[in-house]
């Protein structure tokens, strides 16, 4: 009963959101259309004629019809936003994975729909601009005999040019949506009301759409110059339209160097992009609006919607994000709600609220620690990260639809599934369990030590069934199928083969690898993008940052506000969890590429916050520990934690971190 309430709620939120969003976009549409009309008909020397023309055009029936069509476009854009948006970005780890995402059937449908919508918008634009752009067919003089020149319908290349430009822009929007993670929604560092935020972002959207339109216009003009002949002849032959030879063809240099044509192309492109970007912006604003959950409720039927329950909710990722954001906010800004967290249950006197909240936060943080440690183990055992050819989209694709997003569970989140190789199979199953190359020149000293005693006697120890390695085997994600690593080739030639059969297999695989490694294109496609694995590890770190903020502020506030000493019981756990996470994060930043900063995007609609989430997490973690240590000060010596952790915390007390 209560569970269904949550699900229906989770389903209702996006629906209500979508309706609001559509309402806003549709309301804004006439304004943008009016601006477009004004700009497209602009004439410097006849201002009065210009204004009067525009007003008459704005009230014309064709414009109204265009607006209806545009409303339909906005509606579909809204639907796609809702369907495709994701809170955890998909980060392709190689170019091959990116290619796979672009060619994914879902993405193909998306591209197709956007191409169609682009053509529709451009049709509306060309009708609105009027003049030589208005129709596809125009009457012209055909080639007749005996001075009797029949009037036939010719192909209007200007109209076709704009329509094709619309399709091109639609496709590039869809393509860039994947490359720039357009559908990734990030949360702002500060809370703002919707209207001021919209106002603040509007100049950025205008700028982005102008820049994007200029780029697209340039690219499309180049494309049309080279390949424009093909669609032109195809259209004219299928629709039985003649090509007017008296006019200058557009796929020539002189035809394209027409200022008014390029101006109209850019203006229409800006209008097109602006319509789409505005929907994206409105969607982001609506979806990231903070939601406040009650901490506890007096009625049992509302209990499912209380913060501790929603935090533990594993089925809806959106709810988890909202709940953690709310936790971070309440811990900083709301005394009364903090007191509710620290209070005891009325019969029994148990701190259920605090226990549930701290347990959930700690499990999130320790899960991140495990993920980092697993990644470090994998890297350490290989000497380098293998070239991951799969992307994390197995995860994020399923995360995208808001209502039924999967849990932040361990099976889903381990980097093993993130980087699962899709082109496996070069290694035989026989060698698979011991692949990570204890014998490779880059193998970790830890593993070397584990098998160290056998090293001098048996040079090839792939068959050594050390319990440590066997136990480690399944844990290492890269151990499963290490096929896509083309660069590291273990040399066995100098070693005496003990088990000739499996050695033969190894040699074969090495040969295949070395063969493939020489193919430049394959290396280019399958080589790991730098930083990608780091970014993928921290892709959902926004929840961890909120958990850290919430925990640290609650603990700090408990120093003066916690009347029952509720927090004290979990303080050792929290401190050790934070210190262990800090150690894991510190070690992660020592890996190559982990601490290199991404280049800053100039002006893009796509959000690139996910690229710097790992730095944000590190800063939030240190601030969280400092917050606790400065509040408790010397009292921390009375907390029961291990000596190493105490040593680390002492560093914080002395401000030496």
């Amino acid at each position, binding site marked *: 009963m209560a569970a269904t309430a949550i699900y229906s709620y989770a389903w209702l939120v996006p629906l209500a959101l979508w309706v609001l969003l559509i309402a806003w976009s549709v309301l804004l549409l006439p304004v943008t259309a009016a601006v477009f009309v004004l700009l497209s008909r602009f004439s410097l020397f006849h201002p009065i004629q210009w204004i009067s023309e525009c007003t008459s055009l704005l009230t014309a029936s064709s414009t109204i019809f265009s607006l209806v069509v545009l409303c339909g476009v906005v509606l579909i854009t809204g639907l796609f936003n809702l369907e495709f948006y994701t809170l955890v970005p998909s980060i392709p780890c190689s170019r091959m994975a990116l290619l796979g995402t672009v060619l994914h059937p879902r993405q193909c449908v998306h591209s197709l729909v956007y191409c169609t919508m682009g053509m529709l918008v451009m049709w509306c634009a060309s009708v609105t601009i009027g003049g030589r752009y208005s129709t596809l067919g125009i009457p012209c003089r055909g080639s007749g005999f005996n001075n009797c020149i029949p009037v036939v319908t010719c192909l209007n290349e200007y109209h076709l040019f704009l329509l094709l430009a619309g399709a091109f822009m639609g496709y590039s929007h869809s393509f860039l949506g994947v490359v720039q993670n357009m559908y990734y929604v990030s949360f*702002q*560092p*500060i*809370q*703002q*009301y919707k209207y*001021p935020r919209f*106002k*603040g972002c509007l100049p950025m959207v205008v700028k982005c759409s102008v820049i994007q339109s200029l780029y697209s216009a340039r690219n499309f003009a180049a494309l049309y110059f080279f390949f424009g002949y093909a669609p032109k002849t195809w259209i004219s032959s299928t629709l039985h339209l003649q090509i007017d030879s008296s006019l200058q063809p557009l796929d020539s240099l002189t035809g394209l160097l027409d200022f008014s044509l390029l101006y109209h192309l850019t203006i229409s492109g800006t209008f097109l992009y602006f319509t789409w970007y505005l929907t994206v912006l409105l969607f982001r604003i609506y979806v990231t609006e903070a939601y406040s959950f009650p901490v506890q409720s007096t009625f049992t039927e509302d209990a499912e919607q209380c913060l501790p329950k929603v935090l533990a909710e594993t089925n809806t990722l959106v709810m988890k994000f909202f709940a953690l954001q709310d936790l971070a*906010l309440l811990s*900083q*800004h*709301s*005394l*009364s*709600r903090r007191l509710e967290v620290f209070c005891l249950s009325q019969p029994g006197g148990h701190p259920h609220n605090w226990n549930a909240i701290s347990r959930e936060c700690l499990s999130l943080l320790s899960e991140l620690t495990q993920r980092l440690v697993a990644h470090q183990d994998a890297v350490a055992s290989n000497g380098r990260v293998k070239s991951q050819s799969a992307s994390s989209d197995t995860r994020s694709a399923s995360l995208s639809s808001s209502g039924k997003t999967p849990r932040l569970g361990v099976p889903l989140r381990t980097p093993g599934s993130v980087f699962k190789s899709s082109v496996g199979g070069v290694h035989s199953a026989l060698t698979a369990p011991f692949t990570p190359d204890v014998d490779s020149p880059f193998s970790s000293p830890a593993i070397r030590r584990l098998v160290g005693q056998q090293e001098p006697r048996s040079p090839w120890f792939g068959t050594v069934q050390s319990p440590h390695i066997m136990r480690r085997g399944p844990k290492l994600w890269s151990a499963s199928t290490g096929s896509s690593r083309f660069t590291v080739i273990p040399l066995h030639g100098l070693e005496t083969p003990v088990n000739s059969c499996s050695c033969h297999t190894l040699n074969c695989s090495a040969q295949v690898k070395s063969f493939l490694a020489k193919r430049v294109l394959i290396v280019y496609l399958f080589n790991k993008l730098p930083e990608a694995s780091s970014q993928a590890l921290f892709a959902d770190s926004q929840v961890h940052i909120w958990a850290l*903020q919430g925990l640290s*502020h609650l603990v700090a*506030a408990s120093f*003066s*506000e916690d009347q029952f000493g509720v927090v004290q019981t979990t303080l050792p756990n929290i401190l050790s969890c934070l210190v262990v996470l800090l150690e894991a994060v510190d070690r992660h930043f020592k890996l190559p590429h982990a601490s290199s*900063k991404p280049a*800053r995007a100039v002006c893009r609609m796509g959000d690139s*916050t996910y690229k*710097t*989430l790992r*730095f*944000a997490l*590190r*800063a*939030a973690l*240190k*601030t969280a520990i*400092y*917050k606790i240590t*400065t509040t408790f000060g010397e009292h921390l010596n009375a907390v029961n934690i291990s000596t190493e952790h105490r040593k680390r915390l002492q560093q*914080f007390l*002395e*401000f*030496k*971190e």
Partner: protein
Amino acid sequence: MCSLGVFPAPVTAAQTLLERNNELLSALHPGEHPQTHEPLSACVSVPRFLAVGSACVLALLRWASSFHGSLFPHLTLSSDEMVAEFSQMLDWSDSALRSFAWHPHTDKFAVALLDDSIRIYKSNSSATPTLKHRCQRSVCALQWKPLCGSALAVACQSCLLIWHVDPTSLSTRPSSGCAQVLSHPGHSPITSIAWSPTGSLLVSASPVDTAMMVWDVAAESAVPLQRVGGGGVTYLSWSPDGSRLLAATPSALFRVWETRMWTCERWPCLKGSCQVRKLRKLSITVFELMYAFIYFFKLTFFSQTSWDPRGERLAVLLKGDSQAVNHPSVIAVFKTRSSPVFELLPCGFVMGEAGAEPRFMQFHPHFQHGALLTVCWSDGRISHVPFYFSSAGLLGGDSPQQALASNTADHSSNKLYTEQIS
């Protein structure tokens, strides 16, 4: 009611050493100053004609491009003049010390010098790291990140630098790779920066930009908060509990932002241009206090105030008249008490060496035995003047800051002032 006439007459040509037993003690022999640093040398190298020429062109361009140019005369200033005008340091352009900042938690401070380098001094370490960066020019403000041992924000002419100086490292020249460069088109020169007390956000302001930037430093992304009117933002200050932010503009207007939903309210100044530069505690009593100051003293020459963290000493830097001979800048110190009623009692004047004028002052954020006022003098010296007293707040067991924080901690019920009044 209080006036400068009640003050004990300042001892001329004697440096103030400390306060003990409610008296300011002076040293008659200027040789014995244990707490005075050596003068900091700095060299000047400015290609004069180039700088002036390009500054003129830039100022012209800015004036032409900005809609506010005709309304707000400060926009016609060159970048350097603007920094000098709105810097906290008096006579910024010819001062050997450009900016100064205590670390909020430990005994270390950073000083920006005339040659655009920054030095960091620690209490029990002889190593003084020198920070240099090619973007680090015309440093106007420094601030250490709270709840962090290493991060120092530097407001420069063209950008914002975040230095990460490892406190355990012995290196004297941290590489420029330790610095993050944050910049936003149209947002320079930056004259004021303010970290939120939790250290999560950094706000920066520029007199030419009507928007102030709220930075998420780790992500290097900024959220502009734009409000038309005022012609720019010159000074920023957070309240100690982080619930409000003061933003002063070059004209007779300042804004108070509440930091939960980031809405603001406008406060027009009553008398002429707003001289409220430094507010230690942003609460109703402080605003009343500031109005009281402006009303009672009518101090148009009133330049900086600094309140010690316990709220028991208030230092006011009175700006002198550079034309007149006998009107140097002086620092007047008041004893303050906020309960049961607000009281303001004169304590005395803090004097430097002969001929030295105070340029900047700041209280040490956590001095054990009372308050410690650090003063930057015009001759390049930095002196620390301790005020020994036993705090009334400590006897009660709770520091006033904590009491204040817990009083105003429930921000959800906190309305802006006009909402409370109406």
